[in-house]
């Protein structure tokens, strides 16, 4: 049976998408930052070398033979060629008058007096250039002369460098995104894991298991688990209450039934008319059936209670079987039936002796009931793999193959049991007990001869 609940969205998907989005934004940011920084550095390094070049030209400026002259050092321009393939332009002016170099190069007016160098990006001869201008004052007889040297370079190398860096930065950003995405998916997985663990542990529980969830859960899930535990507590209480009510009812019914039976037997001895005796006998039979049902209801209530609080000891099942058999000896003898037990001392089983005895007792009781007069009932103790198996054989009619599957449900009785007293709780009790011990109950028909076989499989301790 699958329960469909109202599902809307998924925490995992939402978290994953959000983390991927964040990773993408951060990767883009990283790319932009690296590019901005790279551009700054590239510009700065070009500015630096241009400044060095302009300064060395400016240093060569001197007053000679009545005019300003510059003796451009070879290194001033060759240093620019050392670092890049860019075209180089320069211009020297004295008091704004062109002295040498490239006449068309437009020179910026040096800004404030304090600034020794000014930088600008502009166009010359059809290409973008970066230009540095440096100014120096020379003293001359007719007053100071302001010499300005401008050195410019095209931006080919800078562009190439930026292109190279942008490729690297792209891969860096992409790598960052992938790494962040993987980590994000992993962390989403680990965040969702406690929910899955809780769901698994709750859905893996047996139908009787209403214990509180004990496993540690994250703080965020605590309210849910507390609510779940409370709910289960209430459910358990209400179940217990109904079991108690049934037990109490059975108990209350049993005592008056015993009195009633005694009175009916006394009456039976007294009456002599055959029709009266027949009806009294019928009455006694009905009383027996009711009291047995009440007994089994009590047993079932006891089993239900004890399966929650098993009193576990090491049990020798052969010994236990023998004891149980002895209790049924008087009843068996009355019906001229022989109870046989066979087998060797099996490995010990850990379990609640009272429960197991009760379960076995119910099955033996059934066997005595269904076996024909004068036949044997056999109990065999053996081992099968790591199971210790207790099998009860009778020589009755056996089970109807169609009934076998649901015989262990409450109050269910086989189609061939109508003539026999019974409540339909015996097999239920047996199954609940054996399941509480981690084993299972197997119903089958005997081979070769008629008769049923009920086997308890207990795990070895």
């Amino acid at each position: 049976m699958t329960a469909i609940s109202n599902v809307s969205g998924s925490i995992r998907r939402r978290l994953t998408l959000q983390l991927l989005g964040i990773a993408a934004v951060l990767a883009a940011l990283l790319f932009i930052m690296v590019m901005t920084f790279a551009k700054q550095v590239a510009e700065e390094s070009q500015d630096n070398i241009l400044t060095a070049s302009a300064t060395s030209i400016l240093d060569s400026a001197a007053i000679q033979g009545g005019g300003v002259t510059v003796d451009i050092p070879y290194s001033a321009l060759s240093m620019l060629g050392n670092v890049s393939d860019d075209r180089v332009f320069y211009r020297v002016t004295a008091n704004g008058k062109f002295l040498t170099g490239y006449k068309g190069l437009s020179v910026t007016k040096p800004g404030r007096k304090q600034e020794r160098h000014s930088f600008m990006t502009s166009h010359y001869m059809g290409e973008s250039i970066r230009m540095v201008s440096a100014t120096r004052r020379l003293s001359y007889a007719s007053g100071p002369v302001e010499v300005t040297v401008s050195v410019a370079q095209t931006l080919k190398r800078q562009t190439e460098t930026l292109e190279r860096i942008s490729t690297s930065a792209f891969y860096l950003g992409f790598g960052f995104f992938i790494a962040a995405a993987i980590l994000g998916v992993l962390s989403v997985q680990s965040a969702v894991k406690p929910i899955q663990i809780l769901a698994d542990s709750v859905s893996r529980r047996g139908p009787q298991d209403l214990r509180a969830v004990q496993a540690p859960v994250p703080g965020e899930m605590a309210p849910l688990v507390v609510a779940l535990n409370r709910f289960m507590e209430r459910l358990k209480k209400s179940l217990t209450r109904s079991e108690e009510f049934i037990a109490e009812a059975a108990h209350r019914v049993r005592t008056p039934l015993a009195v009633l039976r005694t009175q009916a037997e006394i009456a039976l001895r007294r009456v002599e008319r055959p029709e009266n005796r027949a009806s009294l006998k019928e009455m006694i039979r009905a009383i027996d059936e009711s009291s047995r049902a009440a007994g089994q209801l009590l047993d079932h209530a006891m089993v239900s209670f004890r399966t929650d609080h098993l009193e576990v000891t090491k049990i020798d099942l052969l010994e236990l079987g023998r004891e149980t058999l002895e209790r049924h000896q008087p009843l068996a003898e009355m019906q001229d039936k022989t109870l046989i037990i066979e087998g060797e001392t099996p490995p010990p089983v850990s379990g609640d002796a009272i429960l197991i005895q009760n379960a076995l007792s119910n099955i033996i009781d059934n066997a005595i009931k269904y076996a024909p007069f004068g036949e044997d009932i056999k109990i065999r103790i053996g081992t099968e793999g790591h199971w210790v198996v207790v099998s009860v054989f009778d020589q009755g009619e056996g089970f109807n193959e169609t009934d076998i599957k649901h015989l262990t449900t409450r109050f269910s009785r086989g189609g061939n049991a109508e003539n026999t007293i019974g409540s339909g709780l015996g097999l239920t009790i047996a199954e609940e007990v054996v399941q509480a011990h981690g084993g299972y109950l197997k119903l089958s028909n005997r081979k070769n001869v008629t008769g049923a076989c009920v086997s308890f499989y207990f795990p070895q301790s």
Partner: protein
Amino acid sequence: MRILLLPTILISFALWLMPAVAYEIEQHKLFPASAGGEGLRIISNSDSDIFSPLIEAFQRKYPTVSVDYTVVSSTELMRAVYEENAAFDIAISSAMDLQVKLANDGYTRPHNSEFSELLPDWARWRNHVFAFTQEPASVVYSKSAFEGLEIPTSRQSLISILRNNGSRFKNKVGTYDIRQSGLGFLFATQDARNSDTFWRLNEVMGSLNAKLYCCSADMISGITTGELAVAYNVLGSYAQARAAKDPNIGILALEDFTTLMLRSAIIPTTAENPDIAGAFIDHLITASWSEEGADYYPYPKLNRERASQRLSLRTIRLGPGLLVYLDNLKRSQFLQEWQNAIIQP
């Protein structure tokens, strides 16, 4: 009348459009194509006799291309391309500084050669200037004139030998007139950059009433005729070719340094057939820089290592540094100093 008038106007208009060639042409040679097709116009300061094997090899690969080869001096080449925007598809020059200047100032087209990985980094500048030779600046001497004298092994020893034998070398020393020759100017500026002995050598040469030449070939001829005893900064590739024929010609192996010049090719922006020009540059690169080397390659074998086994070999580097001595102020200062040293009254 009208029918006649229109062509007349057109022709005169065309004539008016055609620029008068102001640069001085030394030699002009046509390499006709075996089949009609496009033409490749080359302006060069390389002697056509030496250069022609390269053109012929190119025409074997591209038989439909006819080549028009104009020889000018490096200075005239600069004037043709820089000032007159003459329409050439390729400019070949040994004046590296002028080639770089053309490229830097936007007079060249880029060429993305599929063979560019054959070139060492220092043998090209941007994708504009492609070097295809490596030629030393040599000192050539007449063996007979040095009879009984020690053969100099450095500029120092050359200076002292010249100084100590003033009468023997008077009027018998030659070098480039760097005012005329772009290559001479390049060699001189690189020498000045490398060592101060250059100026002392010039002083000594000036005191010996040095003769000034436009070209290497003339200097070597001077040695053969006995007109010169020593020629300073002669193009080594020419000298070697001539020394092989004339046993009297010796080449000094100087220990202090030897400048190596790279002859290079560019595609001017005025090129009418840039694709064929690109193919020609690829042809030059493969002929010069491929491992095996082409058998028709007429220049000395190239050395990939810039700083070769002999540390004294210094290859001039292509790059903006070469622009420095082309600066008007710097150039006139340098020429002034040079004149003061070499021309002594």
